[in-house]
Structure formats: structure tokens, C-alpha cells
């Protein structure tokens, strides 16, 4: 545990300054953007509405660079031989690129919200200031961003370890390639395997499943009946499925990052 604390402190020392600058720059830019309408009339705005999007986008960039040491021979040796276990080193980087980053983004947004509220008052605005703070739910907004951020972060975290050059771009390309493969495979399967089950194409005959229709002017219609018939009840809750998928993606890609880092040579 003591070693992990040092590994974490080391990472914080390396990244804190950069993260603070980036968080303030992003939040500040959002505030300035939202202040543009003030040229005509001063009005309340909510900088928190863009918090999820900017946090995810900035977080991806931060995460892709979190293993920057692996990109230079001199730094790589230092990181590989840093006296901590693989789990401690990867764990420290994980905490910095998730919790610390999120915390700084939240604080930066809070700071610009306060500044924006003060400027609003100074500019003569007299509406309630709670609007600047997402009607008081700024923390809820920040917390709700995490479950959406983590799966994306996990993918780019793995990419940061796996790709020696341009990890952000290559991870993005891999994801596009990967998803395209699924789409193509899905289309092929639909066309040649499941086609007989859909009305509209006589070549393969017709085997109708109630509630599952494709073709004609209707496009794909899946009203859930098929799903209900073929999967156990516990999986019929879409929110549960979505959460399971998110958790799986996070755990699998963090584990892959750990395994890849363990095998990394200098």
C-alpha cells in the first residue's frame, strides 16, 4: 500500500500541473463561449450542460497521453523499472486519468461558474444565480458523467499502453474498424442467414416471427417480442444490460492494459 501511495504521488507530481491547466482552459473556454450572447444582452447561462461532452473528449486526450513515458526510450526504462508492481503503476495512472482528472474538471467548472455568476452581477444581471450552477445540481451532473466517461476512458487507456505511436488516433481508428466489422458482419448475417424470416424478399421464402419484421417501407421493426421470447427475464431490462456492458468494457480493457503493460519491454 505504501508503494502504491508513492506511485500515485509520483504520477500526481508528473501530471497535476498539466491537468490543472487543461481543466481550467477547457472550463474557461466554455464560459467564454457561453458569454458571447452577452454582447447583446446579459443573461444567465449554464456551463454545466456541456460538462459531460467536454469531460469525455478531454478525458480521451488525457488518457491517450497518460503512458507518454512509453513513447520515449529514456522515460520508458524509468517507468518499467520504477520500484512498484505493475498493478500499482497502472493503478496510479488509472486514478490520475479518471478520478483526479474528473475532480479537476469539476473544480474548474465550479470555479468558472462562480466567476460567471460574479460577472453577471457586475454586469447588472438580477436573475437568480442558481442557473449558473445547473439549478443546484452541478454535482449530480458531474457524478453522472463518470459512468459514461469510464467505458470510453478504458478503451483509450488500453490504446495508450498498446500503441507506441499516436495512441489516440490509432485507438480511434481501431474502434472504427472494429465497429465496422460488426456492422458488415451484421448486414451479411441479416441478408443471408436471417432473410427468410423477413417479409419482402421472395427469394428465400418467408418464415414470419411475430413482431420482427423487415422489408417493404417499414425498415427494421423490432418491437421487443423476439427478445422477450429468447432471453431470460433478468436480461430484459435494457438499463441493466447497458450497465453490464459498460462495466464489462471497463473491466476488460483495464485488465488488458494491465496485461499489456506487464509484457512491455524497453
Amino acid at each position: 500500500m505504501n508503494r502504491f501511495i508513492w506511485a500515485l504521488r509520483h504520477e500526481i507530481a508528473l501530471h497535476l500541473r498539466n491537468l490543472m491547466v487543461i481543466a481550467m482552459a477547457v472550463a474557461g473556454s466554455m464560459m467564454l463561449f457561453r458569454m458571447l450572447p452577452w454582447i447583446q444582452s446579459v443573461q444567465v447561462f449554464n456551463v454545466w450542460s456541456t460538462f459531460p461532452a467536454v469531460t469525455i473528449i478531454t478525458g480521451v486526450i488525457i488518457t491517450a497521453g497518460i503512458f507518454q513515458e512509453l513513447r520515449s526510450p529514456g522515460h520508458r526504462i524509468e517507468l518499467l523499472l520504477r520500484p512498484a508492481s505493475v498493478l500499482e503503476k497502472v493503478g496510479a495512472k488509472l486514478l490520475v486519468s479518471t478520478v483526479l482528472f474528473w475532480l479537476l474538471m469539476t473544480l474548474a467548472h465550479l470555479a468558472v461558474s462562480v466567476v460567471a455568476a460574479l460577472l453577471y452581477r457586475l454586469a447588472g444581471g438580477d436573475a437568480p444565480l442558481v442557473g449558473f450552477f445547473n439549478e443546484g445540481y452541478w454535482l449530480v451532473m458531474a457524478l453522472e458523467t463518470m459512468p459514461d466517461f469510464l467505458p470510453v476512458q478504458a478503451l483509450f487507456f488500453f490504446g495508450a499502453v498498446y500503441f507506441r505511436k499516436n495512441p489516440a488516433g490509432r485507438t480511434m481508428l481501431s474502434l472504427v474498424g472494429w465497429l465496422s466489422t460488426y456492422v458488415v458482419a451484421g448486414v451479411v448475417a441479416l441478408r443471408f442467414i436471417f432473410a427468410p424470416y423477413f417479409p419482402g424478399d421472395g427469394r428465400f421464402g418467408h418464415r414470419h416471427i411475430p413482431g420482427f419484421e423487415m422489408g417493404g417501407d417499414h425498415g427494421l421493426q423490432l418491437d421487443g417480442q423476439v427478445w422477450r421470447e429468447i432471453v431470460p427475464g433478468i436480461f430484459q431490462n435494457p438499463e441493466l444490460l447497458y450497465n453490464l456492458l459498460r462495466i464489462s468494457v471497463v473491466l476488460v480493457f483495464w485488465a488488458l492494459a494491465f496485461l499489456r503493460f506487464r509484457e512491455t519491454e524497453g
Partner: protein
Amino acid sequence: MTDTMTAKVIAGLEGVRFGYPRRKPLFESLDYRIRSGGVVGLLGKNGAGKTTLLKLISGVLFAQAGQVTLFGDPAEQRRAATLARISYIPEQFEVPQIRLREYITVQAGYFPRFDRQMMERFLQRFEVPGNEYLSELSFGQQKKVLIAAALATGAELVILDEPTNGLDIPSKQIFRRMVAEAAGDNRTVIISTHQVKDVENLIDPIVVLDEGRIVLDATMEQITSGVAMRRFATEAEAEQAGALAVESYLGTAVALVPATAEGGEPLSGALDLELLFHGAVTRGAQLQAACGGVA
């Protein structure tokens, strides 16, 4: 100091094969043991594989066949407890973007036996300024900080790859004194270099790596009792006396010969490491036999 050849083995390579992709293998079946204590001078030509050997020992690179052990564990496992016993300063290094004091604090956290007083003393001797960001120091200053930290960690194995590159002349002298001060029976310092003059009177034992093989591994005691420096009238005369390496100076030939050889005028003073190196790469087997070292 403990007899280097009977001291315990802290790292070893057995039948190691290693090569970089699309290149001729560097090591086919390399065997080598590092014993506790002393300042090991690892010498070799450019491209002989010195840095690769150090990376294999420290677990930065993985052997393609054979086994590399470090303090009894497979080196490639890079266990935290093992890593806390070594300190490695590569030839090509980059410093982190943190201030000097923070760097010292972090290093002290990782290495339980970190000696802050030694670190401060070494920094003072090197005249490294107070608390700058490491990245804002000159290359030489950065190197001094890393060397000072490596020696102050208390690590049992300190690996310095070409440590004198980038150091000015006074700093090289300070470096030699610091290494001599930090080394001991329980601490091994490996210095890899092709600038043997920089580490003269410091390294013992001497290991010469050539064409993927250890062609010499002997203590200074073994070397000085096995070979001698003599001056001959001509190179031919030196060769006749069984010279292992010869170099002509101002019309005479200075040769490294087996101690049992006859003829020539004995030379006093320190052993010429460049001549020894030359002998190791041209007549390694004969030199090793004369020194009785363990190759």
C-alpha cells in the same frame, strides 16, 4: 573488500539468446554472472551489446531463450521488491517534469534505504542548483542529478550506462570519487563505457564484451598478476615475446604480455586499459587464460 570472484551472485545470465527484429542475433548463448561488491567495468566496442546486456540484466528486455535472474528472481518479472534493489541510469535518459526536491522525495519513498544526506552531499559536490525543474537543467546537470540519486538510493545494484558522457572534466573526477565512496561489499556498481580513461583506477573487475561473448572477466588482481606492460624496441620483438596487444609510441613498442613472458623493459604505473581492451578483443582466449579469470 570481498574477493569479487567468491562473492555471492546477484544476477546471472544462462544460455541467453537475444536479437533485435530483422537483425543478426546479438547473443546466441550468453553466460555471465555478476557478483556482489565492486565496480564492474563493462567495456566493449560501439554496438557490442553492452546496453542490451544491461537491459537484460535489469529486466527491461526479455531473453528469447535461456534465463536471466536478478536477486534470485526471473528478471523479466520486474517484481517491485526486486526493482527496489536496483537503480539504472540509461545512456539515453529523459528527466521527469518535476522539481528537484520533489524528485528526491519520490525517490526516497520508493527506496527504503535512500540516503538523503548522501544525495545532498553529491549534489553539492556537483554544484547542482537548488530546486529547479529537472527539465530546465542542462543535460550535464540532469545527468549529475540522476547519478547522485542512483548512488543515494541504497540499491544493491547500480547500473550506469555511459555515465561520463556529457560530464565536464572536473565532474568526471567528482564522479569517480563518488562511485568509489558509494560502492562497497554489499553494493555492486556496473559502469558500461567505451571511454575507459574516464573510469581508470575505478573499475574492478573488468568485463569485456565482444561479438556477443564475454571475452574477459577478471579482477584487477588477476589481471595484474597475469599480464604485464613492457616496452620493446619494435613491434616484431614484442610479438615474439608473446604480446597480447601492442601499441607503438615514439619509436618504441609498448606491449601487454603474459607475466611469464621474457624480454622487454618492464613499465611501472597503472595498467593501460585501452591496451588491455585491445588485447581482449583480439586475443581474448589467451588473455583470459593468462589472467585465469572466469569468462
